[in-house]
């Protein structure tokens, strides 16, 4: 077993390449608000939820109501509540380490961890490093984007790296578990929700998928 921090660095590097410019874009867009630029990295430090932050920028810029903001954030953020379900056993233990892991449970952390076997004694250190690297990347990107402002327009298209990474991890997951049913249900639900509920696609898809999977398992148990 290699050292945990190095292993975590190796696994996060591709996500760092994708996350950093995204942070820059966020910091850059923050300038449309009449606010001190330093609040942008502060927001990335405390809120640490990419899609919620981008949504909030839009609502703040258009002077939307606080109620709309909270409700939308709750909808977008609630997908993370599902992530914990797969990590209940892995994120055990006590103290600040566990709570930092839970706070920092963003998409790339989840995607990496479900594809990575438990590392035994080194596992908590591995998870902590992984979480901290991504958090730091997000803050640093935002800081640079916000500080450099208009002098440094971000490069478009780098978000595709995220798509490619999620696709790779999905392939890995399928090679391991061959879970075609949840895959098909999720894909079908995503397509339906895209038509029915634009804006609430993610949480809609997630709820529908979980419901269908639960009903199927429940029938299996009672049959």
């Amino acid at each position, binding site marked *: 077993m290699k050292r945990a921090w190095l292993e975590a660095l190796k696994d996060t590097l591709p996500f760092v390449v994708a996350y950093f410019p995204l942070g820059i874009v966020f910091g850059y867009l923050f300038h449309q608000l009449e606010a001190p630029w330093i609040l942008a990295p502060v927001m990335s430090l405390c809120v640490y939820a990419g899609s919620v932050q981008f949504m909030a920028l839009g609502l703040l810029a258009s002077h939307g109501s606080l109620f709309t903001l909270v409700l939308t954030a709750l909808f977008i953020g609630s997908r993370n509540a599902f992530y914990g379900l797969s990590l209940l056993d892995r994120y055990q233990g006590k103290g600040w380490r566990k709570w930092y892991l839970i706070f920092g449970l963003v998409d790339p952390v989840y995607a990496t961890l479900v594809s990575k076997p438990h590392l035994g004694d080194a596992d908590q250190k591995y998870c902590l490093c992984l979480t901290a690297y991504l958090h730091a990347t997000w803050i640093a990107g935002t800081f640079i984007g916000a500080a450099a402002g208009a002098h440094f327009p971000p490069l478009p298209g780098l978000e595709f790296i995220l798509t490619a990474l*999620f696709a*790779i991890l999905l392939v890995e997951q399928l090679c391991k578990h061959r879970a075609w049913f949840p895959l098909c249900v999720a894909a079908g639900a995503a397509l339906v929700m895209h038509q029915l509920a634009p804006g609430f696609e993610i949480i809609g898809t997630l709820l529908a998928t979980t419901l269908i999977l639960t009903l199927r398992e429940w029938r299996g148990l009672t049959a």
Partner: protein
Amino acid sequence: MNPIVVTIGLLTGLTILTRAFPFLFAEKLRRNHLLQKVAQQLPTAILMILVFHSLQGTTWSSFPFGMPEVLGIATTVGVHLWRRHMILSLISGTSIYFLLAFFTGGTG
């Protein structure tokens, strides 16, 4: 107080609330067999959803009809099934995406 500071405070609370939610009921959830079975299948479903979600900015209804994205993903997946080498799959898929996006005027 600055409305942006208020917003940051509120959203921080929401982040903690949504992420900590399942852990607050960890003991109960762990004992539920039905839920455990569903939770085992969730990673595949969620990764699928993340792929879809990350394609939100794609133009499907007009030229280039999401072609750079679709072919970029196809290349990534194809190369990955062939070699199972993450960095190689990532670089080849992303290169195809950038080339197509550049020549169809999507990017750059």
